[in-house]
């Protein structure tokens, strides 16, 4: 009687909306300023101060809703969510409770080559809280400092349906959501700076059971990897607990990246009561169809559309197209290359291979790299023209990546130009064959390895610059001729 369990995941994502000023006052939203330099009496919750809604926030929320195939509410309102915390200056957060701006959307993910639709329950506008800086550990700190720069930064909370069934699906959803938000131009989505945050609700249930199991909420998963690992760990933990006859308690968890485990923060047995009520300082918000239409007409290309375009127009395989369209900057780079170098597959190999490897290794984004599309294209052309080998090209590319230099310049400075002159190579080959009679014998007795040895020797002598096609051809001629 082995019970098989399935994992059920729903995500709550907070995306900072990309506005110049905060949601209810004129303070800057720029990241990384000195503490408490982007604060005014409104976002510091001073007495008598009143919120004034930033129209740009609503525009970006509508834009997001459209990008997520959601319904945009004609009427919505703001509510006060009441709780005491030192980083919450008014002791209530202005949010949207039962009348959010967006409802009933979805996005499609691809998992093991299969398309899967993930429902989006709602998306609502709210203000961010400030930040606490503790002296050491939160439980022992003698005092904490409050930085209110973030207080009042506009957020869109996007809540998914519990439609995901694994850490991998959760990750795919999150990656796709990020791509959509980036393409729609509504958020910077920098997870490490906190402009995209994710909480995961995880439960398990015996396969076939309809009701959801008791869920736990894992807070502040600040990378895709953390999300995937945390979900899988938590599901495994719950299954093991159930198998041991334990009950799952509804609680809030935190993810310990280093030890790779979830830990309980607080029990949710006593449900939080936020005493939501409509904010009397803000009249209900009416959104005209005309406004929605205007925003719809100005919507940029979204990931799914871009992916289809790359497949239809350039014959790119679906997997490649889905990777290239994970970020608008990657796609822009790719599109720029395509203008002058239409071999999309070669391009995507380089983008997904060397480019991705170096970006990852150096922990930077594509818009920050020094190598430009024209550089990559020049280099690819040099390969095509036989000026450099594919192997050398990797070295050249790394140099381009680090220094931003032209490939031609690098090749010239380092003397990496490919040796394709048969006369030069012939002399070299003759010498190598002469000094390795034993290997020649091996070759002739049918050992394929021996041929590789000779290629290796030529490459060694030329420091990898020999044109491999010509070397192969010449070697064959020599060895076969003397036989």
């Amino acid at each position, binding site marked *: 009687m082995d019970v098989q369990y399935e994992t059920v995941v729903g995500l709550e994502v907070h995306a900072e909306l990309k506005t110049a000023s905060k949601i209810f006052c004129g303070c800057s939203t720029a990241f990384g300023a000195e503490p408490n330099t982007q604060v005014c009496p409104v976002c510091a919750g001073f007495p008598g101060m009143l919120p004034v809604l930033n129209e740009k926030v609503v525009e970006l929320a509508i834009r997001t809703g459209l990008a997520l195939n959601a319904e945009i509410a004609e009427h919505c309102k703001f509510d006060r969510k009441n709780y005491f915390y030192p980083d919450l200056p008014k002791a209530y957060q202005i949010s949207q409770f039962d009348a959010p701006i967006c409802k009933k959307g979805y996005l499609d993910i691809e998992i093991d080559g299969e398309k899967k639709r993930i429902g989006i329950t709602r998306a609502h506008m709210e203000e961010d809280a400030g930040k606490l800086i503790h002296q050491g550990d939160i439980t022992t700190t003698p005092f904490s400092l409050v930085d209110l720069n973030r207080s009042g930064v506009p957020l869109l909370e996007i809540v998914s349906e519990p439609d995901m069934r694994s850490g991998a699906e959760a990750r795919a959803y999150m990656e796709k959501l990020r791509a959509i938000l980036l393409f729609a131009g509504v958020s910077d989505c920098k997870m490490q700076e906190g402009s995209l945050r994710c909480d995961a609700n995880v439960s398990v249930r015996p396969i076939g059971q309809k009701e959801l199991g008791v869920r736990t909420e894992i807070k502040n998963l600040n990378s895709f990897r953390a999300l995937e690992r945390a979900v899988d760990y938590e599901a495994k933990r719950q299954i093991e607990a159930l198998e041991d006859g334990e009950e799952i308690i509804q609680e809030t968890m935190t993810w310990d990246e280093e030890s790779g485990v979830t830990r309980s923060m607080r029990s949710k047995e006593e449900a939080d009561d936020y*005493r939501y009520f409509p904010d009397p300082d803000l009249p209900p918000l009416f959104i005209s169809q005309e406004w929605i239409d205007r925003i719809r007409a100005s919507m940029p290309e979204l990931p799914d559309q871009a992916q289809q375009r790359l497949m239809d127009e350039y014959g790119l395989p679906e997997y490649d197209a889905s990777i290239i369209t994970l970020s608008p900057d990657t796609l822009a780079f790719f599109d720029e290359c395509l203008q002058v170098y239409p071999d999309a597959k070669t391009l995507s190999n380089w983008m997904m291979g060397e480019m991705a490897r170096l970006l990852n290794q150096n922990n930077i984004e594509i818009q920050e790299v020094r190598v430009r599309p024209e550089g990559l294209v020049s280099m690819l052309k040099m390969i095509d023209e036989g000026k450099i080998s594919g192997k050398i090209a990797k070295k050249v590319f790394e140099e381009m990546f680090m220094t931003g230099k032209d490939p031609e310049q690098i090749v010239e400075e380092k003397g990496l130009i490919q040796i394709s002159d048969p006369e030069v190579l012939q002399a070299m080959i003759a010498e190598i064959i002469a000094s390795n009679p034993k290997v020649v014998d091996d070759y002739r007795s049918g050992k394929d390895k021996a041929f590789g040895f000779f290629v290796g020797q030529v490459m060694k002598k030329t420091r990898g610059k020999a044109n491999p096609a010509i070397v192969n051809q010449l070697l064959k001629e020599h060895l076969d001729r003397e036989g």
Partner: protein
Amino acid sequence: MELYELTVHELQKLLARKESSAQEITRSIFSRIHATDEKIASFVTLTEEKAYEKASQIDKMGNYQNLAGIPYALKDLFCTRDIRTTCCSRMLEDFVPPYDSYAGRRLEEAGGILVGKLNMDEFAMGSSTEHSAFFTTRNPWDLQRVPGGSSGGSAAAVAAEQVPFSLGTDTGGSIRQPAAFCGVVGLKPTYGRVSRWGVVSYSSSLDQVGTLTRDVMDAAIILNHISGYDPMDSTSVNTAVPDYTQFLDGEVRGMKIAFPREYFQAGVDEDVRAAVKNALQLYESLGAELEEVSLPCSEYALPTYYLIAPAEASANLARFDGVRYGLRDMEAENVVEMFSQSRARGFGDEVKRRLLLGTYALSSGYYEEYYLKALKVRQLIKQDFERIFADYDLIICPTTTRTAFKIDEEIDDPLTLYMNDILTVPVNMAGLPGMSIPCGFADGLPIGMQIIGRAFDEASMLKAAFAFEQQTEFHRAKPHLEVK
């Protein structure tokens, strides 16, 4: 005649003719305040130095337009830049805002001279100033009695001729009730007419800034100066502001006035009822058409108010947590204790009572039954008024059920105290303009008549009030203060 006895429009004439100066008027005002405030206790803060400075600037410029050279005072919940703003609470005893309220700024820009900040019930919760954390203001007509509240200091200061006018706020009657008790003119405009920016919120959907003056003309003048759209207050309404003084012609002929029977019934003292009925007869004799009507939902206004106002207050006052400003308990062992101890020490009993009430009304499981239901009843009250105003220009009734009560008479019984607002609260529920003007005396204590208008039709209200004032002397009566 002393300068401090003059109204705003009288002072304006004097200044325009250069027969006096801002400094002279300011001196007269401060000497009056110093002579009387020991008894009346209207002021929690005096801004003497700044006031003389401004007066001297105005005299130097010699341009006496608008309110240039006219002294005034503010209820101590109007934030004043660099001047402490306490809300008469221990919580904000040392709070100095870095900004001015919108209404206060408009008065400053018009040349008004702020002379001080006025006593009130803590955070505007109360009807007597007895809930001020500092002291109780005395009614100038009888020092053993309360001036009303919460804008008690604002009404008493005008009645005692300490200032020609003041600003207050009215959430459930907090301007009209003290105006009635002190025998002055108190005007609460339509919700949205005057910006709430910089006014410490009690109940955001009900609070409205208004005036306390010695006559109707002054109310119109000051309303001209503080009204208008303010983009910084999202509940401020963008409609044209007429010159209210142009409606003051003494005419009420053809005006349709309704008097709701529920507002004259049980609980209203005979003296009060008689005085308002007399006033109605006077209107009739002036050519107004009068008719008795019914506002059946008004009886639910008080319980509705005591759900909505405390609920909003529970959120509005939650920011007083000791973290950024205001009183902080320094002995607390941890942050939760700091929150609760700061609030336990910073708030008085009445504030705590209402915050608990409001927190309860919003709690999960009670929200639908209390808060949501209250919002629905509020709509019914509003519709009641709308129905009447489809046929009538004004509603007239008593402002209060009785004249000013004795200090300590009601403070121990919150429910009786809450009854003080029974005739004024419905007007806030409906967001309508209302005012109280003196219409008689009972045992030497003033009686107030309440005039209620259509939304954004302060003009008709002022017009009728002025016509009554032209025919009567009640507003000219003065309390007899023995001064040193």
